[in-house]
């Protein structure tokens, strides 16, 4: 039982630690990149002090996480302020939803905004529990066709579509 608790806590803390490390790594990389390109004061005037403060704050957060973990692992998750436990949604649904979103964005250029949008909405509806075939097919088409037509009319640059909308 204790093993299970500790394991659950560590997953939450691991996520928090990963986010802080992500922010720190980004800041360090950005500082190095900016320094390599040009080490003049003008180039680093804002970036350097801001980057250093980010590093200091990042290490303070890591130290706090480790300190709280060291005090008592069982209460760690509630003390690590802000870890969103209120959303109450199924984590898997969110992850699958994000994966769908990634596929949707990267398919836009290849299959067109209209087709990609219709497939994305249809699959998302299915993911969120819609079972009626009529809704799964008709709603995506009913939403995407006028939307795509509106954007092709309004945008002054080429808008990739599967169907030949007149621009």
């Amino acid at each position, binding site marked *: 039982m204790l093993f299970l608790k500790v394991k659950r806590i560590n997953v939450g803390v691991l996520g928090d630690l990963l986010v802080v490390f992500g922010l720190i790594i980004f800041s360090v990389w950005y500082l190095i990149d900016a320094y390599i390109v040009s080490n003049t004061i003008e180039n680093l005037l804002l970036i350097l002090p*801001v980057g250093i403060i980010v590093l200091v704050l990042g290490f303070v957060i890591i130290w706090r996480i480790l300190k709280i973990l060291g005090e008592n692992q069982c209460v760690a998750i509630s003390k690590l*302020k802000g870890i969103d436990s209120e959303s109450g949604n199924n984590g898997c649904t969110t992850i699958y939803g994000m994966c769908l979103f990634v596929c*949707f964005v990267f398919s836009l*250029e290849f299959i067109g905004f209209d087709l990609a949008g219709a497939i*994305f909405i249809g699959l998302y509806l299915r993911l*969120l529990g819609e079972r009626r075939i009529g809704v799964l097919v008709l709603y995506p088409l009913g939403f995407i066709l006028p939307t795509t037509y509106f*954007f092709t009319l309004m*945008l002054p640059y080429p808008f990739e579509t599967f169907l030949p909308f007149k621009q």
Partner: protein
Amino acid sequence: MFDFSAMQQAIELLSSSFSPWLVVVPGILIGLIFGAVPGLQISMAMAIFLPVTMSMSFLQSMLFLTAVFTGGSFGSGVTAILMNIPGSSSAIATTFDGHPMALQGRHNQALGIALGASSFGVSLGYILLFFLIQPMSIAVLNFGPAEMFMVVLWGLTMIASLQGDHMIKGLISGLVGILVGTIGFNDLGVLRGTMGINLLMDGVPVVPAMMGMFAASELFNLLGKKYMVESDEDRKVDISGIIDGFRTAFRYPVILIRGALIGLTVGAVPGVGSSVSNILSYIETKRRDKDPQSFGTGNPKGVVASEAANSSSEAGSMATLLALGIPGGGATAVMFAAFSMHNITGGPQFIREEIDIVYAIIFANFAQVFLLIILGLAFLPVLVSIVKVPIKILVPSVLCLAVFGAFGLTGNMAGPVTLLVFSILGWLLKRYGYSIAAMVVGILLGKMAESELLHSYQISGGEMGYLLERPVAMTILFLLLFSLFGKKLKGAIFGKIRWTLRW
């Protein structure tokens, strides 16, 4: 100070024929639609419809374009409240309290408040413009990089007040936002942080990033619910609720006036405009309130502050355009193009020779406010119906619309990809208690802050004493420090006096 014969001519221009007014209603509707569709910008609407103004008289074209501007300023607040997607950067602060109100089933009231505050902001902005157009145009000329940096610095202090549950996490997200905001070419032509991606040369597209962070973090969290507002009772679309909200806005006259003044002043500064004014107004309202903790949880005052400021910015940007011939932002740049199309150049000469036209534009905007109220009240019930849409339909549709809009903003895949990256980042940050709002403010102001700081550094040659020679910059710095520490200072002084008197 006033040219009464020019005023009379202006009224004659507006009342002698009905034709100038024919373009106002379509203009407001176009603005409302473009403002309310995520990703479609007011400046984009104005640019698309600019060729139409070729066939119009100069006055008619100005009325049309200002109507689009007015409608768009309000429209961008609608999506900010209902979907947590600010239609433009001028509605960022509207999301902070507007969307929590919508989630609590107070969407009717929130939209009514936004309409009331926007109408007031536009009216007061133009009234002040009427009185102050000439002195304002002179004052704006005194704004150099040091002053602009002070204004941006004021905006950046917002990061500290958007800390959320955890101060350090709030600060770090705001500061990382500043770093992200500086990616791409800086003013010296140095390219940083693009990872070799050409699409990032101009920097991270701010609006798609903002849409991703705000919308996705909220939409992904809604997945466990059936509707945005759970209770059937609260999902009602209620015109009386909207009207009640409209009245509520006027229960906070100080916030309205302060917001409108901030909007007008900041809006008049070229390049800063409404994207900063709504944030400044929000910070000041939060700081001065007796219960600052209630902000961010659905406090109507937050919506009033933001909407009053972003609406009055329109009058501020018109001041610089009319009096100096300098477009302060995207929307006024399109108006500037309309000036050129009619062979007119803004500036002191224009004010001197065509003051009747200037007065006509100002008077017409008062009338536009009434039309905005009527059209807003007519269309809001339709827009509010979004809370009745089941989440399983709403989430993919809004995500899809946001992706289309992000493409519309950039014209290439940089928009959708930025939206995607910042959606995931926003969801992660929200899940682990980092302030998304602080990061968005950082991204928005980062480039501006670096640019103004660099110009100040170059002009001053690195001498800090340069600041002391800039009275306007020192005044802004003093106001900034006073707004930050004024309350504590007052408390300390009065506490000491009371302590001395007791002895």
